[in-house]
Structures are given as C-alpha cells and as structure tokens.
C-alpha cells in the first residue's frame, strides 16, 4: 500500500536523481563547450578533452544509485512498503546530501574541468595533472554520497501495519 511516507521517500529519490542529474548535465555541458572549442583547433586532442568533459558526470551516477537504493528499500519491484511518515521523512532527508551535494559539486567540478581543458590546450603533456585537479572536487560529492548511503541504507524502516 502506498502511504504518505512512501511518497515522501519517492520525493527523496526524485531529488537525488534529478538534482544531481541536473548538476552533472550542466557540468558536462559546460565542459563540453570548452572541449568543442579545443577540438576545433586541435582535433587530435579529442579523446583527452572528452575524458575531462566526462568527469563532472559522476555526481549524476551517484544520485542515480542513491535513488535506486531508496526504491529498493521501499520494495518497489514487489509489494510497495507502506512507510510511516517518519520513515518517509528519513528517506527524504537521507537523499538530500546526494541531491544538493551532487548538484553543487558537479557545477564547480565543471569549472575545474573547463580550466583543465584549457591546460590541455596549452600543455598537452600535463593532461594527467589537470585530470587529478578535477577529480579532487569529486571527493566532496563522494562524502555526500557516502552519508546519503548510510542514512538511506542502514536504519530499519517502519511500516504502517
């Protein structure tokens, strides 16, 4: 049976997937614009620029996983659990770090990615350093995803019987 609690959990899933997805989309798009500019001048650098473009995409992935985890917990593929309001709120709040963290870190990570593409243009041999700098921002998306994971996964949920 679907209760308010279940719906709250779904809202959490929506936020996790959507917001981190939007963040990644914006991030990858910005980096993609820089990459297109680079490739128009130096087509041989395409793969490296493409790789840098992809790096802000991780947040969307984390958001998808957290969202999927929420769905698993409310047993979406079988009898949907009838969560109490409190359990619903728990799922909702648990998704927030991944959602908001993903959104904001993705946008900032794309700024570093764009600069790294500029680095790739001027000094193609230092490509790895640019990549490492971009991946640094991901650490915080990672922290957010871990916290979301713990809150969504660990506690026992209560259902309305």
């Amino acid at each position: 049976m679907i209760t308010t609690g279940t719906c709250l959990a779904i809202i959490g899933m929506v936020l996790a997937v959507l917001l981190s997805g939007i963040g990644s989309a914006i991030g990858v798009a910005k980096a993609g614009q820089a990459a297109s500019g680079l490739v128009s001048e130096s087509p041989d650098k395409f793969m490296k620029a493409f790789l840098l473009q992809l790096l802000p995409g991780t947040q969307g992935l984390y958001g998808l996983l957290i969202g999927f985890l929420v769905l698993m917990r409310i047993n979406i593929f079988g009898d949907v659990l009838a969560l109490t309001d409190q359990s619903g709120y728990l799922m909702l709040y648990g998704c927030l770090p991944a959602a908001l963290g993903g959104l904001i870190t993705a946008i900032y990570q794309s700024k570093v990615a764009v600069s790294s593409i500029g680095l790739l243009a001027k000094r193609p041999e230092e490509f790895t350093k640019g990549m490492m700098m971009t991946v640094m921002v991901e650490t915080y998306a990672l922290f957010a995803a871990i916290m979301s994971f713990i809150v969504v996964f660990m506690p026992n949920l209560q259902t309305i019987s």
Partner: protein
Amino acid sequence: MAIVKMSKLRLLGLKKQQNKILAALQQTKSIELKKTEDFDFLASGTDIHNDEDLNEKLSRLTSAIHILEEAEKQSALQKTEGEKPQKVKKPLFSVRSSISFNQFKMITENEYEIFSAVSELESCSEKLLLFKNEISKHESIIEQIKNFSEIDVPLNMFKDTANTKIMLCTLPAEFEKPLTEFFEKQQRVIIQKYKGIGQVVFVLICTKEDYTAFSEKLTQLSFSRIFFDYDKTPSELINTHKQQIEYIKEQRAALLGKIMRHKPMLSDIKLLYDYYNIAVYTKEQKKNFKSSASTFILEAFVPEESIEAVQQTLKKETPNILIEFSEINEQDNPPTYVRNNALVKPFEAVTDMYSPPSHNDRDPNLYAGIFFFIFFGIMLSDAGYGLVLAIVCFFLLKKFSMEDATRKVITVIALGGISTLLWGTVFGGWFGIDLAVAADNGSALAAFLNSLKWFNPLEEPLLMMALCLGLGVFQILFGLGLKGADLIKKGKTLDALMDVGSWYLLFIGIGLMALGSFSKSLPEIGKYVAISGLVLLVLTQGREKKGIFAKIGKGFTSLYGIVGYIGDIISYSRLFGLGLASGVVGLIMNTLANLMLGTWYLALFGVIVLIVGHGFNIGINVLGAYVHNSRLQYVEFFSRFYTGGGRTFVPYGSKLKYHIVK
C-alpha cells in the same frame, strides 16, 4: 608483450651517395631519424641540390587531386541525355592503397607526364571558374529583368521627349492602392500597371508640366524610375540569356568530361604527392645531419631486433659506409615501439588515447586490456546485446579493409561484445527479457538460460555492488603491486615495502576485519594487520622530510590518502550504474513494445520500437561503456604506476597520406 628495446645507429657516408643511402634506410621501415649529437666541429647538413620548389610542387599536386575529386562529384550530379547519373562509390572505411617500394621510388620517372596532366587540370579548372562567373553574370541580368517581363516593348523606349515624360517605374506593392486612387482622379495621364514580384511596375506618360504636380505624390509613395539600355523586349532578353546559360553549361559538361579523362592519373598523382611529402620531410631532417666537404653523418633510432637487417641493407647498397650501433643512454629521448600479441594489440588503442608508454615504462597493455575486457561486459550487461555487438563487429572486421587504428577500436568493441555475452549470461539478461517469466510460460531455451544465471543484479543490488567494488579493490591493489614490482626492479626494494607494502597491510587488514561472519579469529588478526599497516605508513611516508616531527607529521597527513582510495573504490560503482542503465532501458523498450504488439493496429510500430529502441540502447551504452571504462583505466589504474609521456615509433618513410609501402 613488450616495449621493444631501441638502440642508436650512427652512419658516416659519402654525400654523393646520400640519397641512395636514405632510400635504402626508408626501405627497411625500421629507422626513425634523429638529431646527430657531438661532432660540433662539423657543420650542420645542408642539401646540395636546392629543391626550393618542392613545396610548390606539393601544393600543385594537392590542388590537382582536389580538382579531380570535385569534378567527379560534379559529373556525378549531372544527368546526360538518357543516361543515369553514376553514383560515386565511397568505401565504408577509408583506407590507403598499398604499393611496393619500387613503385614508390619509380614514380618520379613519370613526373613529366604527371605534371603535364596537372597543368591541363589547372587550366581546365580556371576555365571552369570563368564559366561559373559567366553563368552568374547572365543569371543576375535575368534576375534584374524578371520583374519587367510583361512589358512587350524594347526596354530602352522609356525616354522623355521634348514635352512629355515617358517613365518606367517601380513602387512597393503596398502602395498600389494609393497610386491607383491618386491617378484615377487625374486627367491627361496614361498609367499602365504590370505585375511585379513584391513590387508594382508601371509606365507613366504625362506632360512635363503635370509631372511637377505628380512628382511629390510619387516620391511620397517611394517610387523609383528605372533606366535600361537594352534595345530588346524583356522576354527576348531573358530568352537570349537563358540560351547563353545553356550553351555555357554544355561547354562545362564537355570540360568536366575532359577533366575526367585524366581520372586514371589520379593514383599516380597521389603517389607523386606522397613521394614529395617524404622528400620535404627528408629535407627538414637533413638539417640534423652533420657534414664535411664530401661526407655526412646521420643518427637514427633502430629497434635492437632490426639491427641485422638494417646492416645488411646498407652493406648491399654501398661498401663505402661506416656504421655503428650503440646503446640508448639517459639523455636520449627514444620513441616507443610496442609489440603485443593479437589479443592484446587492440587494447593499445585504449592506452594510446591516454598516452603511449615511454621507453622506460612497463607495457601496461596486457593488464589494462584484461581489466577493460572484464569491465566492459559488466557495464553493458545484456547477453543479447553482446551477441549482436560481437557478430556485427567481427563481420565488419572480416569484410572491410580499414586503417590500423580503426581496426583496433572495432576489435576492442568486438571483444567487449564477447565479455558482455559472458556477463549477461551470468546476470540473466537477454535483450531485457525476464527469463523466469519466459521459463514459466514454457520456453525451454529460457529455462536453460535461466539455469546459467548466477544472480540478477536488480534483485540483489548489494551483492552486485560488492562485486563491482571488489573488482575495483582488486584492480587498485594490482596497480599498487605493479608499482611495487617496478620499484623492486629498479633495486628500491625497501621503498617498495614502505610505499606499497604498508598500504597492502592496511587493505588486507580491513578486508580480514570485514570477514567477521566467516570466523571469529579473522577480524582479530585483521585488526592487528591493519594497525601495523597504519603505523608503518605514519612512520615511513614522511621519510623524505628532515626532523622527527616533520617526518611523523607528514606520515599522519599521508593517511589522508585513505580518502582518496575510498573515492577511487566508490568510483567503481559506475560499473553497477551503467549496467543498471542499459538493463533498465532495455526493460522499458520491451514493456513499450509489448503494449503495442498486443493490438493489431500498433503491431508494426511495436516492431519498429523494438528494433530502434534496442539499437539506440546498444549504441549509447557501448559509447558509455567504452568511455567510462577507459576513464577507470586512466584515473584509477594508471595513476598508480604508469607515467606515459612517450611518443610512438614512426619509421622513416611511413607517414604517407594516400599509400602504404609494402
């Protein structure tokens, strides 16, 4: 699988035999020219023969090739009377033609004929341009007169007489009504209107005195008077010009035919182009030689295994030569020549996209290849897709010839298809169909395939996650291990123990601690192992610093690396994520198609949805799998032990645009 050992060749020869020697070296396909070191008392090499028009020849040949290819396209577009246009067949994969070295050398014997053809092509191309300009001139006149085509008197008749104004004018279409209204009320005026394009064309005849009264109104309506010099009516003029255009077009077709008669020359022109391309490169390289009055010295990189062959070829060419082979030393920057067996070779495409190995690196292709193969299957995760992918790619490889680089990428994808087939069988995914349901409905095939399944990732996500992260931990530890092996090879065993060994202790310790469900004692042991790893890290990671506090301090901060490792491990969850994505989209396509196939009127759409939907899913997910997989290799694996930064060994004489020399 290895990086082939390079050595240096130093050669002293007579200047008058220089070209012969260079041709022989080119034929070996085993040397790459480099800058000659030492011998500072000698001058840099210069060319005796000053071929300054080499570049001019190259550009003439390039434009001739372009003229021929353009003409081919043009004549394919034209339809001659009664004939069907011939389609220019472009091959699916562009590939260079292969020729023998003799053919390559001998092309200069045909140089005279080739360049006379080139001159003809150049003059034909000029004429084509003239034709083009002529046609547009005629077309623009027709454009001018089109508006007035209804007038049936010669256009130069609209001239004023002593007392009357006879005017040919135009007016914007929206002012037609005000014009008509105004002149209806007027006396002693003849106005004849014609239909124009977006305009009103009219002829106005009135006395000069009356005109002063009209002119203000006409200016208000933004009229403009047109003057023409032509002494023919518009329709006659248009006809004449159209005839001209047709005539020029006929001449043009004939000219295109004349150009196409040179088509058989195209391959020779391309060959001569390649020849001169190498000549220009050689001229550049000669600046790196050292020369005396009648001798010269050059240096080159040669793979060690080719030394014999190179020596033989040179000795055959001329006995008056001094050859010396030596070891590579620290200062040299040798190119990298990677050789791998047929299974590993395609994965060079993946590594080279990051960076080819430098000469001193370990060849990572075998390991990267194995991990890439394994991960690809998990990311695509549907056995049906894998089967389709493998069949299509192997078919492409068999049927079409293609450049080396393209062949490598398609082979990687084909192998990825096989990996997907294996993992898909294990996960029970076949084109997104639910095997359990199909088996219940009586399908024996489904029941069989179901029995091969290990577990369904959608039903047991935790197990799937553990699998992915476990593989990740394995690859990271493997990468660390390679770093350790490299250190030990360089003799820095102690460093290996401190840098790699301590992390290994930590990981193994944590791993043991997690196995609490299997045995009570393991976590205890694990705890001590992990702690020893931590202590070792704190003690040794700061060993470069001076002073006991700095050493311990740096050791503590190195523990921050644990966060980095956690990040890298979690990054492997993308294996799960991507596999999930392709599985779910496949499921959606099936659900949609099922809905449509249930009704008779949407059945056809259902089939289309299936084909297009699954096709799209395969395409997008293969791209994603390739790229994300590459990213895992580069960021999480290579960063442990691989620097890259090398450049590929390019044999002298192999960088041809249109040909490959056998």
